[in-house]
């Protein structure tokens, strides 16, 4: 199968000289759901911003065979949808519908198709009928779902989520999980919410100090207590992933 995302020897340093990514190599297959886990400051979010060219480091980043470089940005940003951590950053238009239409409008789609995409995306996140509302009047969980819809409306091939579960109460968390599980696209989740990653993903990579230090089936990674601890991670008390038992458990 073709690689949805291919990253080779990626280095990145912030303008002030701080090294954020150090020789990152990652291959994500089409349709795979993968978690990038790691402590704060490990470089997860920096890596994520390389997937659509917001940041550009030294090395190779390819999405479905297309290199992420200047003259491909338009296409790349259509294919890679990033849902950012704070929905207030992602919902900047006057109404929910306008926010969801923002991406398709930039793609230059005809009006009728935009309307259809908005409808479909809002339906997918269970927010149909809220199109006329202002983001300000939504609950945090609803904002998060609409933020997801703003990306789904672009029908991306790769869905990237930055800390999808942060600040969500248990019900909203569950609801978002069900939505994410129902989507059949390549999904990359950046998080340190390990149970969330475990439930959604089949594979996990651990990042630490700008490097990928572990890569494998998520059950195996999360069972390695020592590996987690050395990389600033810890399973919540009383949570035990079942190695290889994930599929049967569902």
């Amino acid at each position: 199968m073709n690689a949805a995302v291919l990253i080779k020897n990626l280095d990145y340093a912030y303008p002030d000289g701080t090294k954020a990514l150090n020789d990152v190599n990652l291959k994500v297959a089409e349709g795979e759901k993968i978690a990038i886990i790691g402590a704060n400051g490990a470089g997860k979010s920096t890596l994520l911003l390389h997937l659509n060219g917001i940041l550009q480091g030294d090395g190779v980043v390819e999405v479905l065979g297309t290199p992420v470089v200047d003259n491909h940005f338009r296409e790349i940003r259509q294919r890679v949808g990033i849902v950012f951590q704070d929905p207030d950053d992602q919902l900047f238009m006057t109404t929910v519908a306008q926010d969801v239409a923002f991406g398709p409008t930039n793609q230059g789609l005809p009006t009728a198709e935009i309307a259809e995409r908005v409808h479909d995306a809002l339906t997918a996140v269970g927010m149909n009928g809220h199109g006329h509302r202002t983001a300000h009047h939504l609950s945090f969980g609803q904002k998060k779902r609409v933020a997801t819809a703003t990306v789904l409306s672009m029908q991306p091939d790769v869905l990237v989520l930055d800390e999808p579960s942060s600040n969500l109460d248990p019900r909203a968390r569950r609801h978002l999980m069900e939505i994410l599980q129902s989507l059949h696209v390549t999904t990359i989740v950046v998080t340190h919410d390990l149970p969330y990653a475990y439930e959604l993903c089949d594979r996990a990579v651990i990042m630490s100090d700008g490097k990928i230090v572990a890569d494998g089936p998520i059950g195996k990674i999360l069972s390695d207590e020592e590996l987690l601890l050395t990389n600033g991670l810890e399973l919540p008390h009383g949570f035990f992933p079942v190695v290889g038992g994930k599929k049967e458990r569902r």
Partner: protein
Amino acid sequence: MSGTHHFLTDERYGGSVLHDLDPRVKIISMLSLPIVAVSTPAKSVWAFVAYGLILAACLGLSRLPLGYVARRSLVIVPFVLAVAVFLPFFHDAGPGGYNIGGVRISETGTLVLWNTMVKATIGVLSVIILASTTSFAEIISGLEGLRVPRVFTLILSFMYRYAFVLSEEFQRMRRAFMSRNGGVRNLWHADMLGPLLGSFFLRSYDRGERVHVAMTSRGYSGSMKVSAPHTADTADAVFLLTMAFLLLMIRISA
């Protein structure tokens, strides 16, 4: 927070013929009424009565509760109090001045007061009618329909969207700040306010950058297409023409 909510209503208030008019028609009407009124000489009292009647008719059409309109009109009181009320005493008393118990009241001053008050009232009432019968989203799309450059409407809509987010952020910072200062009762000292405002600015700036990244990620490249076009119907045409006719007649004869 609730203060911001009060001034920036985003849901329309009630429903009526006026609510259903094309936002472009309402924007043009409620903008030209105060402009025409401002250009009317203060001495043509009857012209202002006529403007008042137009506003009353619009209010009637809009079915807005009068108490609600009255409460919202209180916005102008501070301005009138602070500026206009003293005008009758400050101007040089002309030949037509009055003398009440030794206090001289100038005619020009009184005229200026009347002029300021009546025009401010007309302006405020027009804005209230527009804002209460039109949602903010409609106003923005109406402005776009009127060919206002996209940059301006985008700034307006961002301002509207982030006024809430930023004011809440500021409230949170202020609360955290107060909690560490045993609750400052008197007016904040400049040396405390400074850092608070400074970090608020930085946070807002960061927010702006993150929003821009989110926009770029969804294919924004500096320009945006205008949203769906408006269609004006008979009611819109009738309203607009009536308004134009009345304003023209009043202004010419004033």
